[in-house]
């Protein structure tokens, strides 16, 4: 909401400066977004007289002036067509910052002639739009005066209006609030009702008084819509960005912003028959003044004549029966509509208008006759015309809202004592009618306030006016000492992040949305959670996995020239649309080489075992059963079928890991291998809450362990995990560790076979092993592995 200071002063008698007004507005809850005040930028600009006027020796349109700024005479080169000898204008000396260019003026040299300053146009000073010539002041203007003193300047303030303060969508509401805050006096409105003996040729009938409690119509005959809108009105409208159009349109716009009172003007000659306010019929058509056709439903309110809906009540006028420059007879509508009907229709058909904006918030239910009178007054002043008798359907019998406030609640709710008298004074200034009832203050709302429903609303009014800064700040008394600030699930998500980062991965945060076209391959449930109104087609689905967005990140980083990547994200993945159908997933990708080239160390491409290591590390950081998880080879189809795995606990999936399927990479236009993992954090069981924090007793053997190696030849299909398990199983008491130290496939082995070599740790318990005992242990391993996997010793 914008308004100019002169407009404000139409309603408010005040001597306050623009800065004081702006500060007060913010303090009472009408937050100032911007102050457009050209005066603040006019320091150094002064009035000056053109005392010399010579043709520039090297130009046919430039002049060389001698300018007297009251202190000295300066040579100035000027190209303005309206510059003449003896005129007084506004002079910018060297060093002044020209508002239009936001640059300090320097000594110039124009076609060889030096210039020590500039005569300015309105536009250059930011005080108007005229740039056709320089400002011409009356010839008798004193010279050397600050420009701010002689220019007519009307600063503009823009404030944001919260939805509860609809009355401040009119300048008068803002003026009233400022007056209540002590910044001046609210002036009375000067609007009178014109009586007439002429019977309106157009009658009004309202079918639905719930949707339209009051409808006031006024017929005016013989208006001249080609008349000029007065300058003061045009200036105010222009100042807030509204283009003056014609007197009839300008008047409705003006009253809309002056009193927050929407109006509509019909060309009476275009209306057929009387006005009927009714709900639309299902499927009824309406063409708006913007030329758009709508097919309405039976919950939309129409203002109709015999030919159908001519105005979508309270939202927008129609194309057919509005005013034009040729309009001579008009019917002025000033009505009240139900906010919910307006909001629903506006939302359903997505029509935004100043009128809808006001009606769906609050329009003073007792301003229908007043608004109509004001419109009639302004229209006849500007356009002439003969006024007919007012047509009114329904009654302005609105019952104002009543609320109560207990003065002691200021202390117990806000923390500061405010006297009963002060509360009453504040409420009265805001237009409430107060009385005392059983120690409470009864406050009857002014009709322009629709937001006062209870005590908390009145408290808010008092707080606004005494100022939030008067409330003391009290440190919150320490509450119950929390057992743990983060839940165990939150805490381990944090640990997983730190673990993955300490493994060299960069944490990223990507959208919870993704592109349904690429996401389809990642869905594991049949519910694609698509947005009804995505912001772009590429962000139209709640992601079923964190991987698609990470793959986009891989692609983008490669495009920037960074192709060795390790990225992870901990965030939601959605498997359904119902609230809560989401997992918290730690997902990561690695691609390219483990590092840049180096003179030392093992630089190699990332492979599936890096992803597996990340997954296991994340599970371990989450205190999950990383050692006991089963590994199966049934990862989803977006992974490489032969280089991926699933880590599970029973039927619960803890994690997937593997290379991303090349066909998926192709969809993302990625040309290098990517390995990835997804750990479903909420599938990792939380440790049982145990009160015994003591560790299990450490059992140390007095005898040295013995390491022995065995190499097996097995079918290629045999998994390493089977051999390890069988080996451990050979003697669980004495075999404490089994490690794979070599895997070989190729020549020297029969077709379809591979060799797996393991290293075993035998731990004696009672006495050092004898050679015979070791032989026997190794034999048992050989037999057990052979039995389980068909392996033979190599």
């Amino acid at each position, binding site marked *: 909401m914008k308004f100019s200071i002169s407009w404000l002063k139409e309603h408010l008698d005040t001597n306050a400066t623009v800065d004081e007004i702006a500060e007060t507005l913010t303090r009472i809850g009408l937050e100032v977004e911007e102050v457009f005040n050209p005066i603040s930028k006019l320091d150094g600009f002064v009035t000056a007289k053109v005392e010399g006027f010579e043709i520039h020796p090297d130009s046919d349109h430039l002049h060389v002036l001698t300018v007297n700024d009251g202190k000295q005479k300066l040579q100035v080169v000027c190209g303005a067509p309206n510059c003449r000898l003896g005129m007084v204008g506004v002079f910018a000396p060297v060093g002044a910052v020209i508002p239009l260019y936001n640059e300090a003026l320097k000594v110039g040299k124009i076609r060889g002639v030096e210039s020590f300053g500039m005569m300015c146009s309105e536009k250059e000073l930011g005080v108007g739009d005229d740039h056709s010539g320089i400002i011409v002041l009356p010839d008798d203007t004193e010279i050397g005066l600050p420009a701010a003193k002689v220019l007519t300047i009307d600063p503009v303030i823009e404030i944001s209006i*919260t*939805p509860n303060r609809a009355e401040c969508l009119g300048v008068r509401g803002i003026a009233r609030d400022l007056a209540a805050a002590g910044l001046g006096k609210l002036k009375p409105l000067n609007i009178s009702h014109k009586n007439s003996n002429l019977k309106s040729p157009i009658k009004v009938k309202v079918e639905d008084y719930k949707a339209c409690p009051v409808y006031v119509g006024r017929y005016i005959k013989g208006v001249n819509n080609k008349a000029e809108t007065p300058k003061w009105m045009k200036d105010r409208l222009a100042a807030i960005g509204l283009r003056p159009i014609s007197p009839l349109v300008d008047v409705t716009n003006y009253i809309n912003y002056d009193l927050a009172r929407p109006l509509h003007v019909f060309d009476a000659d275009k209306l057929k028959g009387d006005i009927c306010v009714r709900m639309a019929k299902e499927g009824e058509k309406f063409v708006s003044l913007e030329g758009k056709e709508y097919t309405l439903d039976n919950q939309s309110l129409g203002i109709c004549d015999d030919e159908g809906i001519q105005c979508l009540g309270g939202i927008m006028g129609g194309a057919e029966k509005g005013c034009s420059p040729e309009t001579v007879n008009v019917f002025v509508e000033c009505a009240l509509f139900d906010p*919910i009907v307006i*909001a*629903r229709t506006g*939302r359903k058909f997505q029509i935004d208008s100043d009128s809808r904006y006001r009606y769906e918030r609050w329009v003073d239910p007792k301003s229908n006759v007043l608004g109509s009178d004001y419109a009639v007054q302004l229209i006849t002043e500007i356009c002439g015309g003969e006024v007919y008798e007012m047509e009114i359907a329904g009654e302005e019998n609105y019952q104002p809202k009543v609320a109560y406030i207990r003065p002691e609640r200021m202390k*117990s*709710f*806000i*923390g500061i004592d405010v006297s009963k008298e002060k509360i009453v004074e504040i409420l009265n200034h805001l237009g409430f009618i107060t009385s005392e009832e059983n120690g409470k203050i009864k406050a009857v709302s002014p009709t322009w306030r629709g937001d006062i429903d209870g005590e908390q609303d009145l*408290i*808010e009014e008092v*707080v*606004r006016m005494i100022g*939030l*800064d008067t409330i*003391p*700040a*009290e*440190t*919150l*008394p320490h*509450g*119950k000492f*929390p057992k743990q*600030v*983060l*839940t165990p699930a939150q805490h381990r998500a*944090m640990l997983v992040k730190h673990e993955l*980062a300490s493994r*060299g*991965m*960069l*944490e990223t*945060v*990507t*959208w*919870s*949305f993704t592109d349904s076209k690429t996401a389809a391959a990642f869905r594991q449930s049949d519910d694609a*959670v698509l*947005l*009804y*109104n995505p*912001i*772009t087609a590429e*962000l139209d689905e709640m992601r079923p996995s964190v991987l698609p967005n990470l793959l986009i990140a891989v692609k983008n980083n490669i495009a920037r020239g*960074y192709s060795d*990547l390790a990225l992870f994200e901990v965030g*939601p993945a*959605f498997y359904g*649309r*119902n*609230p809560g*159908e*989401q997992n918290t997933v730690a997902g990561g990708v690695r691609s390219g080489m*483990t590092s*840049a080239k*180096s003179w*030392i160390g093992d*630089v190699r491409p990332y492979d599936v075992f890096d992803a597996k290591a990340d997954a296991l590390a994340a599970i371990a950081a989450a205190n999950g059963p990383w050692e006991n998880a089963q590994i199966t080879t049934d990862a989803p189809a977006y992974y490489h079928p032969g280089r991926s795995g699933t880590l599970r606990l029973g039927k619960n999936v803890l994690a997937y890991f593997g290379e991303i399927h090349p066909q998926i990479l192709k969809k993302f236009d990625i040309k290098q291998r990517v390995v990835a993992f997804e750990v479903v954090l909420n599938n990792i069981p939380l440790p049982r809450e145990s009160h015994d924090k003591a560790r299990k007793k450490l059992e140390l053997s007095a005898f040295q362990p013995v390491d022995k190696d065995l190499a097996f030849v097995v079918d290629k299909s045999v998994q390493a995990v089977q051999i390890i398990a069988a080996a451990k199983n050979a003697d669980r008491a004495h075999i404490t560790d089994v490690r794979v130290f070599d895997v070989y496939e190729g020549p020297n082995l029969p077709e379809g076979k591979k060799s797996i070599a393991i290293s075993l740790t035998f731990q004696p318990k009672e006495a050092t092993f004898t050679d015979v005992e070791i032989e026997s242990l190794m034999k048992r391993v050989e037999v057990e592995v052979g039995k389980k996997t068909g392996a033979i010793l190599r």
Partner: protein
Amino acid sequence: MENLENLKSELLAEIAGVSDLKAWDECRVALIGKKGKITEQLKGLSALPLEQKIEAGKKLNVLKSEIEAALAARKDVLEVEELNKKLMSETVDVTLPIRPEAQGRIHPVSKIYEEVVAIFGEMGFEVAEGPDIEDQFHNFNALNMPANHPARQMQDTFYIPNKNSDDFDDSYVVRTHTSPVQIRTMEAKRPPIRIIAPGRTYRSDYDATHTPMFHQVEGLVIDKNITMAHLKGCLYDFVKAFFELDEIPVRYRPSYFPFTEPSAEMDIGCLKTKTELKIGAGTDWLEILGCGMVHPSVLKAGGIDPDEYQGFAFGVGIDRLAMLKYGIPDLRTFFESDVRWLKHYGFTPLDFSSMTGGLSNNGGSAR
């Protein structure tokens, strides 16, 4: 016996002249080996009469011990020399770079989350959570925003159709704020309540200062005697702790949120120049959060009697806090996964935030 003294100095000179371990060993053999000079002398004793033999034997044995000691000492010296020579030959250029090790980073959003949790944890808050996809009851209605409430339009909402209903009012929303967690918390537990709820939030808005997804942290305090003065104290303590300043100018402006009343926005003092934003000094104000006393309708929707309990709520933008504290200029870059940005603005994995260890810069230098 003079020649014994001569022999001694001759032998010691011989030992001193040995220059490496090989020569030393030859020398040892030549002196005290089976056919060594001293051994020969000892053998020669047998020809002497008994008395002389004893006398000469003693002296020779003393000489032998001295020679042995001299040999041992010489060996030590030679060994050190030899080792030094070997070590010098093993010299490497220690200015060469180390083996490459990747160091990861924690995203600023996670970092701020941890800082905020550390501060409010100290004030007795617990952390609550809620789903990203919400029903309209929790996101709007229970927060005093019935259908057609104009405030709903302030929040450009993403909708998800409900498969079980064609009614638009039954469709789900991607939560527009973390405030629904207020309702879920009240449904789940009785007062006193003191929670914060950080999380992802979503609005259909995408320009220089808005992204369709962003992060908020919600706060809710409900008890019998909580007043707006506590709200101010709590938030003042928070901003001081967060920006790690002893004092910070703050200002509250009346505002409007359907779920709080009175409502306010909090500004902090700062200095804005073309190139810099300095928090805690200067004449400009910067909006930092929205807050207010919980509206009685919200308490009722959460099943709490507003005549018995009251309290306050607030909401802060996590991304915005990160931008202000760590001087990150553009919100959109938070979600672009540019590895150069992640390395530059990210935090080392050791950088755990706490009120005991400090909120920031306590994780060692970034490598």
